[in-house]
């Protein structure tokens, strides 16, 4: 797709979509939203980028290695963080717990923010990987 109007509009719109997605993820514990919806928004922006600028442009930024590594690391981080929380909280071991902070701040809610980010990374790359795989059979 080699359309000048599409490319110029995309330059303006895509950063706002991505910033909105990041806002939804990072405010997941304060306002409606969270990892799943914010990740979907970011994945949609990646799909739009690939539709407008073609597969060669996005391969410089996001390739097979980056997608697989980020998804695996995010899933492992989720498991380790929440597993630690389950073990210490469930067994009542009085080990170190992440403090909850004052409700209403961005940095509050203990593990909710990192878990939201991990879920957002997984969902966003899932959307992008599905589009990419069904479109041309490779990431």
């Amino acid at each position: 797709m080699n359309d000048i109007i599409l490319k110029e509009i995309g330059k303006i719109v895509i950063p706002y979509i991505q910033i909105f997605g990041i806002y939804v993820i990072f405010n997941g514990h304060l306002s409606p939203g969270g990892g799943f919806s914010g990740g979907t928004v970011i994945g949609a922006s990646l799909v739009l980028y690939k539709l407008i600028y073609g597969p060669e442009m996005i391969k410089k930024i996001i390739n097979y290695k980056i997608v697989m590594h980020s998804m695996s690391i995010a899933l492992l981080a989720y498991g380790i963080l929440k597993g630690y929380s389950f073990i210490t909280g469930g067994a009542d071991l009085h080990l170190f717990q992440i403090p909850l902070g004052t409700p209403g701040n961005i940095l509050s809610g203990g593990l909710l923010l990192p878990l939201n980010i991990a879920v957002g990374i997984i969902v966003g790359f899932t959307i992008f990987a599905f589009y990419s795989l069904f479109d041309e059979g490779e990431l």
Partner: protein
Amino acid sequence: MKIIMSVTLSLILIIILLFGVAELPEFGDPNSPVNNYVSQRYLDKGLEETGAMNLIAGIILDYRAYDTFGESTVLFTSVICVLALLKGTGGKS
């Protein structure tokens, strides 16, 4: 004969399931078993136990975090499966 058998079997199954549905509590019934101590506990102590203003996030990422972990694993596994099936086949071209 096959058609009569399958129609009879479907009718019996439909009647059994409808008897099951008839036992469900009405919508908005205050005495339904859904209104138990679990949702009350979430509403009363959700903020101080999870520190989340958005109670939904507090439930799905703190009380029910294992469920969300499973959902993320489902997404990851589906990407791996589609990758194993479709990588290198060149869908559109």
